[in-house]
């Protein structure tokens, strides 16, 4: 019996690549996001690539009203239930400095919104005794940097949430993969300066699916970011606070 994947933030290019990978395995996908026209196109694309079913539903991290119907749709599916979270927003730090209220939205988009939905989904997964949650965090969540510490803080919160959820779902046969991508070639990073070692979304999707299959807990993608972040984490705070990286 096929698995159903709920994809939160289905319009991002990382999500698209991931949807294509699970579609080619014959899984079903529910694409959740805000741009219904775009997701309708991606849903047909997924079906023609082999998804046993694919359709789009509205999801807005800042509008909890949209959560209930998604949970209902998942409940109506047979087989294993899984979810992958690709949502998040990263306003420029300078924009946040000018308008600190942007912090709330960033935290909702990147952490509390999806966390709340996962919290509603967890009992269904437990009841079915399996399934996987893929949570896309960020290397930015590993340490606060002057350039984007609000986004980093949101993702750090999300990482911790995922670790707790893993602890919980493991008991019921489920699994949680925390994904920490480095720089990925997406619309979000298209015109951001200072990017290096940029990975294609397809590479990230392949890495995620491998991690799902092997039941990895936390992965960096591309893998070399593990080494980079290990070094960055090891820099003592008295030194780190003077760096601008």
């Amino acid at each position, binding site marked *: 019996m096929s698995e159903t994947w709920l994809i939160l933030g289905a319009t991002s290019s990382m999500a698209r690549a991931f949807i294509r990978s699970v579609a080619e395995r014959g899984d079903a996908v529910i694409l959740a996001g805000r741009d219904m026209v775009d997701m309708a196109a991606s849903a047909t*694309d997924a079906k023609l690539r082999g998804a046993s079913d694919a359709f789009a539903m509205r999801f807005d991290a800042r509008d909890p009203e949209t959560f209930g119907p998604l949970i209902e749709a998942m409940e109506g599916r047979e087989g294993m239930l899984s979810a992958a979270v690709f949502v998040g927003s990263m306003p420029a730090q300078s924009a946040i400095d000018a308008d600190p209220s942007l912090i709330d939205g960033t935290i909702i988009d990147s952490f509390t919104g999806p966390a709340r939905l996962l919290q509603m989904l967890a009992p269904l997964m437990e009841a079915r005794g399996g399934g996987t949650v893929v949570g896309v965090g960020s290397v930015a969540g590993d340490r606060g940097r002057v350039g984007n510490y609000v986004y980093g803080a949101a993702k750090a919160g999300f990482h911790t949430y995922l670790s707790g959820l893993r602890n919980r779902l493991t008991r019921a046969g489920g699994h949680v993969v925390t994904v920490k991508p480095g720089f990925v070639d997406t619309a979000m990073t298209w015109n951001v300066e200072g990017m290096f070692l940029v990975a294609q979304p397809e590479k990230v999707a392949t890495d995620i699916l491998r991690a799902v299959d092997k039941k990895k807990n936390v992965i960096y993608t591309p893998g070399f970011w593990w080494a980079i972040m290990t070094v960055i984490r090891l820099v003592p705070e008295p030194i780190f606070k003077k760096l601008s990286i």
Partner: protein
Amino acid sequence: MSWRPDTYTGWGRALSATGEIARPERLSALEALEAAPACGRRRSYGDACLNGEGRMVDMSRLDRVLSFEDGVLHAEAGLRLGEIMRLFAPRGWMPTVVPGTGYATVGGAIAMDVHGKNHTEGTFGCHVEEITLTQNGKRMVTTPGSDLFGATVGGLGQTGIITSAKIRMTSLEGRSMYVHERRMENWDEFIAELASSEAPYVVGWIDATARGSALGRGVLEEARPVDKNPPPVKGTKSVPVDAPGFALSKPVVRVFNAAYFRRVPSIGRKVTRSFGDFFFPLDRVQDWNKLYGKKGFHQFQCVVPDNNTPALRDMLELIAGSGLASPLAVLKRLSDRSAGMMSFPMEGLTLAVDFPASKAAEALIARLEDMTLDAGGRIYLAKDALSAAATIDAMYPNRAAWTAEAAKADPDGALETDLTRRLELRRT
């Protein structure tokens, strides 16, 4: 956020442009952009996909399959033809016409009205049933028979951004290609065999360094789909850095070509190839254009009508005598079935030869262009980086009519590229 400054090149890497590029991932993002020309995967060699005096819209992320019904595929323009093959060949379908690289996108295949190894089927555009254009943020649908359609197919992107298209596919009886390879000892044998071949897919590799009695020797490949499993797929290789200048020097190419010719036994051989290996042989080596080093290379491709085939032999003689050619040289048949006012094909033979970029190569190509013009032929704009307005005008009789159509669709010339400016194609 949409526009990013960059310096970029076509496949030949001899010409480059500096300008801003947007790469929309959604239709809404595309439609919000100010008018600018579009590109696919930049598999055209020269400056068709460059805009050094403005902006460029990269369509590679709008690449979804929108529907597939009764053999008609509706796809976004950025979808690669190789991806269509990968997805649909196992279900028994393929695009009726594909060029020699699977990286070409649906948009690029339409805008150049590309041809394949099956000349009897005509060009890619002959199998397009509908095109959706974005003209200055607005959607416009065009179908065969309309002037806009004729100006869009082979129209170098000058009528608007091709956003999606419906393509009639061909049903494919088989899982792989059965290829009959034969040595052609000289020019006369080669053209006689090309003319009489009845195989659905035919392509010739020609040794552009062989001279004298061996002039025009090569390997003829005749192929048809077959219901056999393809041999296991070999992994792709890639060229990580620019090769040094001597990599394609005269002696190296001569030795390589001789070996490539003898690889096929004198009595010929029959082999089974995967679709990918047969249709897109060069795609197995990623970024092979870097083999030509930093200076890049040019491809000369012309078509010469059947009554003037001897002129093509003269050209080959000149090329062989120059010692400038690389191993990549192809001889194929074309038919006059094409779908656009500016389409390249005509009934005759087409010759394509790659040359490492140099002053000598430029001079040689200029002579070859003159010879093509004298022979009543034309050169292919997907490959051109060097030609001049007067030459192209003389080769493309529908140019003025096409320009008028393009002007209706794009009155301000916002879609001009380096190629259309260099060749003054939009001049009325």
